[in-house]
């Protein structure tokens, strides 16, 4: 599935949107402006962008604790996102959810999730709806290498294959679950190896290569839409920031060398270089994309800062419909 130039530009824009949003969010967190925990997606942008460009607002995704990138790539709006992670009333969840529960039901973003491994079963439910209603929509479930060891993920994968549901499982293998390296949490290297056991195809792709992700995700999504059942697509990637925030808890659990090596494969740098080389985007055009996103991020922050805190009187709203 060869991406058109427009699609390539679209992927690029989505990646830059994620990068700049997350960098600014990281700074704001370190400046003490964002309460709670913030799990940033910097380094993994090619995955969200390369997958999401295939989806419409009617297709659903489930996300993880590291959810901003998924929401942004799905079409999330910065001002509502910043307002939410600031805990303001104009946020996506009226300030009640925060970073770990950010969601946009209007565009099929069924939530970041504070419970590791909770997304896949919910995505199976969404895929069930799609099949039930013959809507032609697909569900895509993102989860980490760490999450791949939760029973919930195995149960979801088995059911999805059994019912031939229109769903794609995307394992974002960034090599760590919190501070535990993959080799200390599972005896396999490729999570996609498990696909055979579930009865679905398993594919491994370079998650730092946006085009590779785009192509592999395209195949899987096409398969799902055609009623041929699920795929497990594993994207090898890396998070450039710590597990939480930018510098995290200051634990030494991975080497500077390793980080530097992966940073040399920065998905945005790589992709931009290719786009420029192939005359799809000029260096100036790329800069305009960055500048525009930068301005949009600043506007989003201003909006969020001006938004009021939720009224305590609203505490009990929305517990029930």
């Amino acid at each position, binding site marked *: 599935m060869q991406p058109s130039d427009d699609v390539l530009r679209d992927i690029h824009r989505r990646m830059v949107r994620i990068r700049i949003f997350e960098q600014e969010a990281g700074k704001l967190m370190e400046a003490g402006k964002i309460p709670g925990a913030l799990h940033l997606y910097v380094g993994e942008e090619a995955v969200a962008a390369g997958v999401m460009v295939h989806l419409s607002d009617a297709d659903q995704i489930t996300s993880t604790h590291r959810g901003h990138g998924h929401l942004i790539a799905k079409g999330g709006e910065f001002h509502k996102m910043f307002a939410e992670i600031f805990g303001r009333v104009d946020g996506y969840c009226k300030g009640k959810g925060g970073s*770990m529960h950010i969601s946009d039901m209007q565009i099929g973003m069924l939530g970041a999730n504070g419970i590791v491994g909770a997304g896949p079963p919910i995505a199976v439910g969404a895929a069930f709806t799609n099949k039930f209603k013959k809507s032609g929509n697909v569900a895509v479930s993102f989860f980490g290498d760490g999450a791949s060891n939760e029973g919930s993920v195995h149960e979801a994968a088995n059911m999805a294959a059994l019912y031939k549901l229109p769903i794609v499982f995307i394992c974002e293998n960034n090599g760590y*679950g919190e501070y535990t390296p993959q080799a200390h949490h599972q005896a396999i290297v490729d999570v996609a190896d498990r696909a055979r056991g579930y009865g679905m195809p398993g594919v491994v792709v370079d998650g730092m290569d946006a085009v590779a992700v785009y192509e592999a995700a395209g195949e899987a999504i096409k398969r799902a839409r055609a009623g041929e059942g699920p795929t497990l697509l594993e994207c090898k990637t890396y998070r450039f920031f710590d597990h939480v925030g930018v510098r995290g808890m200051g634990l030494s659990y991975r080497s500077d060398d390793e980080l530097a090596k992966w940073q040399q494969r920065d998905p945005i740098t790589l992709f931009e270089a290719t786009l420029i080389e192939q005359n799809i985007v000029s260096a100036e055009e790329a800069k305009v994309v960055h500048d525009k996103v930068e301005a949009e991020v600043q506007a989003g922050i201003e909006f969020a800062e001006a938004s009021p805190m939720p009224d305590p009187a609203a505490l009990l709203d929305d517990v029930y419909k």
Partner: protein
Amino acid sequence: MAESKTQPEARELTYVAAINEAVRAVLTEQPDAFVAGEDVAGAGSVFGYYKGLLEEFGAERVIDTPISEEGIVGLGVGAAATGLRPIIDIMFMDFMGECMDEITNQMAKMRYMFGGTAYLPITVLTMSGAGISMAAQHSQSLEAWLCHLPGLKVVMPATPYDAKGLIISASRDDNPVFVVLNKMSLGMKGEVPEDSYTVPIGEASIVRPGENFTIVTYSRMVHESVKAAEALSSLGVETEVVDLRSLQPLDTNVVIESVKRTHRAMVVHEAVRFGGMGGEIAAQIQELAFDYLDAPVARVGAPFSPVPFSPQLEQSYIPNADKIVAEARTLLDV
């Protein structure tokens, strides 16, 4: 188990350091004890409980697990049933959802179902409480789930001293014991003897004596209740604050004796009020001390909603000294 307090020294430790010292003592004293959980070894837990223990006791006894709560608790159940003394770490008690079968249907019931032929000396350390904008899935106080399960013991230390003593007691107990910790208390300091000592499971302590009113509470709400008691004192009400320390078994005696002296009582906890421990305790008070009561037993707990993220909303959600005082003034008409 008698309280084996050694010479108290004037040494202060934080709550988290007391936990660390307790687990170190357990691993030192009990060759069959081990710690297993997510990021407990290399990282020493995200809360820092186990810092240095991997280095001291090695990777055979301080074990990083996959993110597999059902597997981790099951491992603890199976290992305990076959001769080891596991300390199992469930990072946040909110994650118990992932392992509730192992807790409810296996750990709590195995001994009974097997006619007493098995026993499970397992200690589970887990974390409760709101207050730092960790939102709805990382802030809950779900102790009532556990206290409802015959076969489990549940303790909730309010102080560094009790944290260390209760963890050591839990590890020596031949039954499953949940030690439910509190995240807002991690940095709190208090006197902690260096030696190994126990705080008996099932014994409440009166942390502030008073003759007009009894507050029954546990975990971090002990400190809010003591603050409230000071405020009530200036209104002429002397409040006795009972720190339950252990919820299962519950030290009904201390509570009832206090209420018989003060004639009025309130239960305070951070957990959602509806269906919380307050209901059980209030019921026991009216069953056992009805004739002594001059007022209904009041309850202070969280409102019936998930824990909100936004800091001000969260503050309006969590019980505190002001809310306790306000509720007490209505009850006592002062």
